[in-house]
C-alpha cells in the first residue's frame, strides 16, 4: 500500500513507453493489433501438453522488446501480476492429471505437471504480447483501430474509461492513504474498523473525480461515438510488414509444434 504513488507512475510508465520512435512503434497500429491477436490465438491453441514446442516462442517477446527498446525489467514485472491466477487454474491439473509423461532418472513427471508448465508459458506469452502492444502503441491509436474494426462503441468506451479510471482510482487511494497515515500514528495498513468508511469514501471520491476528468475530456471534443482522429490508411508497406511478422509465428506453429 505505501507505494501506490509509485504504482501510478509505473502504470503511466508503460503508457509513456508508447511515445517511442522505434520501427515497432512506427508500425501501423492495425498491423500490431492483428499480429498480437494472431500470436495469442496460435499460442493458446497449442495442445495442453505442448510445453516443449512452445518454448520456441519464448524468445519472441525478447526480440520484440530489444527492437522496440523496451525495459525488460519493467515488462517482466508486469507479467508476474497474472501469475497467481494461472497457478490457481493450473494446480488442479497437477492434482487430477496423474498419468506419467516421462521420467527423468527416477523421478516421474506427470502429465498434470507438463500441462501446468504449458499453461504458465501460454500465460507468459499472451500477457507479454499484450504488454508489448500497449507499450509500443499509443492508447488512443488502439481504441481508434478497435472502433474501425467495428467493435461496438460501448466496449471501446468501457475500455477507454477503465484505462483512465485505474490511474484516477490509484491516485485517490494514494492521497487518502497518506491522509489516513498522517492521522493514525503512521500505521502502514488500514485497520479493519476503518475499512468500510474508507472504501465508501473512495468510491464516492473517485466517481467525483472521474466525472470531472470526463467533463474535461468532453470539453475538448471527446465523444463516445466518433473516431477521435482520422486513422492512418493501411498501405502496401503495412500489409507487407504484417505478413513479415506473422510468418515466423505461423511457420513455427505448424512445422515445429505441429
Amino acid at each position, binding site marked *: 500500500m505505501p507505494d501506490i504513488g509509485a504504482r501510478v507512475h509505473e502504470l503511466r510508465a508503460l503508457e509513456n513507453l508508447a511515445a517511442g520512435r522505434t520501427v515497432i512503434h512506427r508500425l501501423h497500429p492495425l498491423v500490431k493489433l492483428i499480429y498480437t491477436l494472431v500470436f495469442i490465438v496460435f499460442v493458446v491453441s497449442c495442445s495442453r501438453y505442448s510445453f516443449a514446442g512452445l518454448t520456441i516462442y519464448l524468445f519472441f517477446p525478447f526480440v520484440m522488446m530489444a527492437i522496440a527498446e523496451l525495459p525488460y525489467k519493467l515488462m517482466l514485472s508486469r507479467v508476474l501480476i497474472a501469475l497467481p491466477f494461472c497457478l490457481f487454474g493450473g494446480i488442479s491439473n497437477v492434482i487430477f492429471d496423474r498419468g506419467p509423461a516421462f521420467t527423468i532418472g527416477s523421478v516421474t513427471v506427470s502429465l498434470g505437471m507438463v500441462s501446468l508448465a504449458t499453461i504458465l508459458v501460454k500465460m507468459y506469452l499472451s500477457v507479454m504480447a499484450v504488454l508489448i502492444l500497449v507499450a509500443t502503441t499509443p492508447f488512443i491509436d488502439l481504441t481508434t483501430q478497435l472502433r474501425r474494426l467495428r467493435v461496438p462503441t460501448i466496449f471501446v468506451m468501457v475500455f477507454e474509461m477503465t484505462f483512465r479510471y485505474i490511474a484516477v482510482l490509484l491516485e485517490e487511494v494514494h492521497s487518502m492513504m497518506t491522509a489516513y497515515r498522517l492521522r493514525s500514528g503512521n500505521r502502514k495498513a488500514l485497520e479493519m474498523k476503518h475499512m468500510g468508511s474508507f472504501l465508501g469514501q473512495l468510491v464516492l471520491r473517485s466517481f467525483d473525480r472521474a466525472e470531472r476528468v470526463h467533463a474535461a475530456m468532453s470539453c475538448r471534443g471527446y465523444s463516445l461515438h466518433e473516431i477521435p482522429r*482520422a486513422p492512418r490508411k493501411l498501405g502496401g508497406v503495412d500489409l507487407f510488414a504484417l505478413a513479415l511478422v506473422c510468418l515466423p509465428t505461423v511457420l513455427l506453429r505448424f512445422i515445429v509444434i505441429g
Partner: protein
Amino acid sequence: MLHVKDLIIDYADGTRAVDGLSFSVAAGENVALIGANGAGKTSLLLSLVGILTPASGEILINDLPLSKDNLRQIRSQVGLVFQNPDDQLFMPTIGEDIGFGPRSFGYDEAETASRVTSALEELGIVHLGERSPLKLSSGEKRLAAIGTVLALSPTFLLFDEPTAFLDPRARRNLTSILGELPQGKLIATHDLSFAEQVCTRVLLVQKGKLVEDSGTGLLADESTLETAGL
C-alpha cells in the same frame, strides 16, 4: 460576444446554484467573477461549456445559442480551465495532452503538431512538452492546463480560480501571460489583487444573483464586498 440571459441552474438535490444571472462579455474583454464560497461561480462556468444544463435561461456564444446540437461548436469557441489541473491533464505527456483537443476535433497530425507547438510557445513551456503531468509543479500544471485549452483556438477563455496553489512568482508569470492572451476572459477568483491586475470589469455574485457589475474600483470598496459575504 458571450451573452448570458436570465440563467438559472439547479442541482439534482434542489440547490439553486445560479439564480437569474444576466451579463455579457465582449470579445477581448477581461472580466473578473467574484463572490463568496458557494456563490455559484463554478456552476456558472460549467454551464457555459455545457457540462451543466441550466434549468432555464439563454447562453449565446458569438450569436450561437448553446444547445445539445451545437455543443461541439461551442466547445471549440469557449475553453474552460478547470480549478484543479489534475482533472484536466490525463494524457501521458503534456504535448499529447495539448494535442488531445485538436485530434478529437479531427485536425490532422500536421495541424495538431503545429497547434501543440504554438500553444507551448505562447505559454513559454516548450521544455515541458515531453514531460509527464504527474511530475510537474502546480505552476507548470496550470500553464499546461491552459495550453490544452488554447490549442483549440477559442475566442473565450473561462478560468476557475487560476491562482490557486501558485507561489508569488508563478502568479506573476500567470498575470502577465493572461494579460497578453487576446481572447475574452471570464475569471472566477478569490484573489482580488490578481483580478485588479488582469481585469477591467468585475461581476460580483451572491447566492447565485448578480449584485454588482462595475469597474475594478469595486475591488477596493470594502463595504460592498463585505455585504456580499467576501
